[in-house]
């Protein structure tokens, strides 16, 4: 059972709240102070990604953030309701068995930024940032949508 669960309407203004909650729970769960910025940024990236996809495809559906500190790890799961095909999920991030680690050196995709300047960089950039910040990252189907699971080691008590 998650230590804390947050459900929020897919609006950009709520992403900051999710970041703040994740950072507070991580600190309380014994994640090292030096890693808290990484938790904050990674959770923010995952939530931003979910919000943008929801706003396009299912603005009435909430986004779920689950934070768990069982065992030796602090784990955050951000779950959206957007099917993979609508998400533009980079090929290969989800394996046939449903889970797969995101490549640590996922291509940032800046070469694809051409023509009219987009507000958002390609989707792979957010995942690449998450992969660069969390100890472990998994992207998998979850219900009708997708979950991004990130975890960090807790300090030994």
């Amino acid at each position, binding site marked *: 059972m998650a230590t804390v669960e947050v459900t929020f309407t897919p609006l950009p203004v709520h*992403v900051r709240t999710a*970041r703040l909650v994740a950072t507070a729970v991580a600190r309380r769960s014994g994640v090292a102070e030096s890693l808290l910025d990484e938790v904050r940024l990674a959770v*923010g990236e995952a939530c*931003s990604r979910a919000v943008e996809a929801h706003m396009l495809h299912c603005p009435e559906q909430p986004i779920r953030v689950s934070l768990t500190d069982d065992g030796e790890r602090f784990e955050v799961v951000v779950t959206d309701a957007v099917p993979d095909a609508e998400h533009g999920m980079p090929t290969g991030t989800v394996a046939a068995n449903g889970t797969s680690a995101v490549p640590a050196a996922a291509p940032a995709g800046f070469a694809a930024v051409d023509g009219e*300047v*987009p*507000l*958002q960089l390609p989707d792979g950039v957010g995942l*690449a940032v998450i992969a660069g910040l969390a100890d472990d990252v998994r992207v998998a189907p979850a219900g009708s949508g997708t979950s991004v699971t990130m975890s960090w080691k807790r300090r030994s008590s």
Partner: protein
Amino acid sequence: MDLKLAHSNKDGIEIVDVEGEIDVYTAPRLRELLIELVNKKNYQLIVNMEKVEFLDSTGLGVLVGGLKRVRAHDGSLDLVCTQERILKIFRITGLTKVFGIHESVDQAIAARKAEK
């Protein structure tokens, strides 16, 4: 903390001072300011990020967009940043090779003048 933006001209270079958090909610305001400056023919920009407390990939996208716009006019967009937590996201994404990143506004101006 919300986002605070200010800008001023120094030696013909527009300095954009950014304070607070640049994320999916606030980044559009920075994007609008950069577009406004370029539309007013300011093609030499320095974005001072010393007071930025948070930056995500949405913010990076805005900076890359600004860089593309000024480069279309043979201009430049340099950054001022010494905070490790902000620099880390530039390193992860490889953008340290795309932007000139300096330790102070004066250093950024000097570097820009040296390239002219």
